[in-house]
């Protein structure tokens, strides 16, 4: 009898598992019917269906029949775009700047991911599905990035895109120079203080990385039997020299970005992206020649001196020169409306609609080396899609549903229902004795801890990003 019970339990577990697996698959298979599909590569397709199976786009076409068990979303009158990709974000990072040294290439944003950051959900509600989570701009060479998909509700290990090429943050200009002003009393002033010193700091790091690489090459070739000491600071820079790690270089003035590219020429690597690049339009031909990408704000300007020559025509001039341009937010707030930032580049200079859409989808995907997975609506790519109530470049448009690999991570109608449930729950909680107001039977109220997350990495230098 005991044995029978054990078998029964085992059997139930197996059946349960099978059922669960079957359910999970059906849940992530979706057929979106009758939408205006903005593919980002092959124009806008009218009255078109998209079938997602096993997380991938399986079919795009008209009148696709729904396979058994597939969830169907009627998107008549609605627009579908690829999921938005933000090429510069600090969302879900519990710390942003390791500002104590001029070179902190050993640090990793991967180590401080917080999957419960509400910014993730709000970004999903704005149609963002992927992001480049960068170290801050406190030092010439900062930490390593993490490229993620915003799989809200999943464990943290599901967020990083497994085969995304690794990257690293570099930074130039005012933030790097000023970080020293925030040195705690008694600590020495940190080098560098000028743009002259910034570029020499980076040159020094790469010269050291080359020496280090030489010593390893000699060891591997058997020239010496003494194994070099492993250096966590220089390893990522060797990867840069070998073309295995992408450099994302924060900077504003054209001269400082050009100087970095000249140094990269000298050292034998290519800068993957100029981040911000508010004056990149001044050196568009030099950028284009090197195949370097630029990730910009559409129209932010004048918030500091090195942003005073920023113009909203930046995207247009770069685009005209054949540069891969993406539009980023660098802000939990702005991230929610990157669609409108893309709309603006049509106005300023006249970038065509599809190329404007690419600037928040396929172009950042290319800059991050994840374009084989995401960034456009094509058969075989991941089912990362956004359903909009109207044309995504219209101010009156709103995200209805955000889907990553077939799974729905934001849905407006679900959200509306959830907030009613939450209001009820809050109401119940507020009536508990422990939550009664002082003098009415309750204890002293807890002091809520409010996060103070800076907008733009500029705001976070010098204190590790953790003010509280």
């Amino acid at each position, binding site marked *: 009898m005991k044995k029978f019970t054990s078998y029964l339990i085992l059997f139930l577990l197996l059946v349960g598992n099978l059922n669960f697996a079957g359910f999970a698959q059906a849940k992530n298979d979706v057929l979106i019917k009758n939408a205006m599909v903005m593919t980002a590569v092959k124009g806008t397709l009218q009255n078109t269906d998209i079938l997602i199976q096993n997380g991938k786009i399986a079919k795009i076409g008209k009148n696709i029949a729904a396979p058994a068990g597939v969830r169907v979303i009627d998107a008549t009158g609605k627009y579908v775009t690829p999921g938005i990709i933000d090429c510069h974000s600090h969302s879900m990072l519990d710390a942003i700047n390791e500002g104590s040294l001029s070179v902190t290439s050993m640090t990793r944003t991967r180590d401080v991911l917080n999957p419960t950051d*509400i*910014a993730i*959900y*709000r970004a999903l*509600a704005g149609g963002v599905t992927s992001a480049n989570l960068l170290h801050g701009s406190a030092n010439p060479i900062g930490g390593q990035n993490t490229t993620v998909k915003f799989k809200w509700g999943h464990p943290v290990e599901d967020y990083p895109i497994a085969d995304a090429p690794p990257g690293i943050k570099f930074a130039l200009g*005012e933030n790097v120079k000023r970080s020293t002003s925030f040195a705690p009393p008694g600590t020495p002033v940190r080098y560098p203080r000028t743009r002259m010193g910034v570029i020499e700091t980076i040159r020094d790091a790469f010269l050291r990385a080359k020496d280090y690489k030489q010593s390893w090459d000699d060891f591997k070739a058997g020239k010496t039997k003494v194994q070099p000491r492993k250096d966590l600071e220089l390893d990522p820079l060797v990867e840069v020299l070998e073309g295995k790690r992408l450099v994302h270089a924060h900077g504003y003035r054209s001269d400082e970005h050009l100087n970095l590219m000249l140094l990269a020429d000298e050292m034998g690597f290519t800068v993957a992206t100029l981040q911000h690049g508010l004056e990149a*339009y*001044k050196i*568009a*031909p030099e950028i284009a020649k090197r195949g370097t990408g630029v990730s910009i704000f559409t*129209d*932010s*300007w*004048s*918030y*500091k*001196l090195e*942003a*005073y*020559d920023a*113009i*909203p*025509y930046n995207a*247009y*001039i770069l685009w*005209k020169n054949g540069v891969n341009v993406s539009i980023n937010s660098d802000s*939990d*707030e*702005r991230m*929610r*409306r990157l669609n*409108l930032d893309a*709309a*603006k580049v*049509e*106005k300023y*200079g006249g970038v065509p609609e599809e190329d404007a859409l690419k600037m928040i989808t396929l172009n950042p995907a290319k800059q991050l080396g994840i374009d084989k997975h995401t960034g456009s609506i094509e058969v075989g790519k991941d089912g990362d899609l956004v359903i909009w*109530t109207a044309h995504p*470049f*219209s*101010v*009156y*448009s*709103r995200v209805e549903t955000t889907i990553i690999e077939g799974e729905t991570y934001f849905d407006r109608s679900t*959200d509306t229902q959830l*907030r009613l449930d*939450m209001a009820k729950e*809050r109401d119940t909680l507020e009536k508990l004795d422990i939550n009664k107001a*002082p003098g009415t039977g309750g204890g*002293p*109220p807890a*002091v*809520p*801890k*409010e996060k*103070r997350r800076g907008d733009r990495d*500029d705001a976070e230098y010098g*204190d590790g990003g953790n*003010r*509280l």
Partner: protein
Amino acid sequence: MNNGKFKIENVRSKLVHIGFLLLTAYCLLLTANAQNDGSEQNQTGKAGTFAIVGARIVTVSGATIESGTVIIQNGKIFAVGANISIPAGAEKIDGKGLSVFPGMIDAGTSLGLVEIGQGVSGSVDLSETGTMNANAKAIKGINPHSSHVNVTRVNGITTVMSYPTGGLIAGQGAVINLNGSTQDEMAVIREFGLVINFPRIATFGGFAGGGGFGGPPIEFSEAAKRRDTALDELRKMFRNAESYLRAKDAYAKDKTLPYPVTDQKFDAMAPYIRGEKPVVFTAERERDIRAVAKFVADMKLKGIILGGQEAWKAADELKKNNISVVYTNIHSLPVLDDNPYDYLFEAPSKMQAAGVKFCISTGDGGQEVRDLPYQAGLAGAFGLSKEDALKSVTLYAAEILGVADKMGSLDVGKVANVVVTDGDILEARTNIKYLFINGRLLPLTSRHTELFDSFKDRK
């Protein structure tokens, strides 16, 4: 403009060494540079009689005319309608396929008071030292030649309220048109609104809050105590000003009374204390907004809320006390993690439903005021009708600023602040085709178009 200023200083330092001839050369150079760099700031446009013919006319106050004419003469809107005869000598503008709107109004900016916020303190005139600065007037600090003026107006914003920040009584705002070589040429209302950072319970940072920016949070009860202290100071300031003004009135009638020593801060408060002009209170949370309403009622003031995240929750008190709201939080993040994601997007529609008088503002220091139409549009995506979204940055703003007799709609007799577009003015892809302020046709140039022209063809 800062660039201009730096160049002038260069000229001065070289003068000593180089002498008169070179000075002349430098002056010429300076002029040339200024032309690349902001001389358009002094291009205050062209006056005349203009007829915009065959355009879609969005009057805002009344029905939209699908095809009609707008006549601009002597700086005013002279005629609007479907069948209007064109005055002799009028400059004709073909409005086919175009739309005409009243210029947009942002009722809560600091435009002109700050050129570059971070790291260039010489260009920042936002906030006086001390906590009681009723006599600090934005009109005296606004830089008419700020590059923000042109950058903003070429996006269809023709009028802003610009106000000082900081302290408890921050000072007085000004309503200005975005055109003019002097502050007085720009002024619509030289002194508008006594701006008060209303004391709030803040357990971290901010005015009357704990430890300052980055400091440790403080206990709620301590924060409440600090709020009460600051509120007492504010009340005292108002009561003292009242007493001072009574003493002055009394002395005016009876010269045997003691002569009250002049106090310019109290004098500055007079029109506000008497309820002749509005007091603008920054406040966001429901409890603070209710506290403002009580203060307004106690002091018998004319009140405006600036900020207003949760104003819809206090609709009853706001309506009872005739308080309107300049809402500045479309581009803000909800404060609490469990606030709905669209909490601040849908606040305007909730105010509209609750019958609170409001307008939408960027609340920005200058550089992002040009986003005003898109902020209103975004509220339009979250419950506000398109018509109300447009009104929230035109007529409603004019009403709250008390200038609806002069602007905010396309009506005969109003000031000709007129924008001609190729589409819905709130849409991000719409282009501005013609711009009039005070009836002057303005060039659509700015620091940005000039830099664009300088670099667009660089090979």
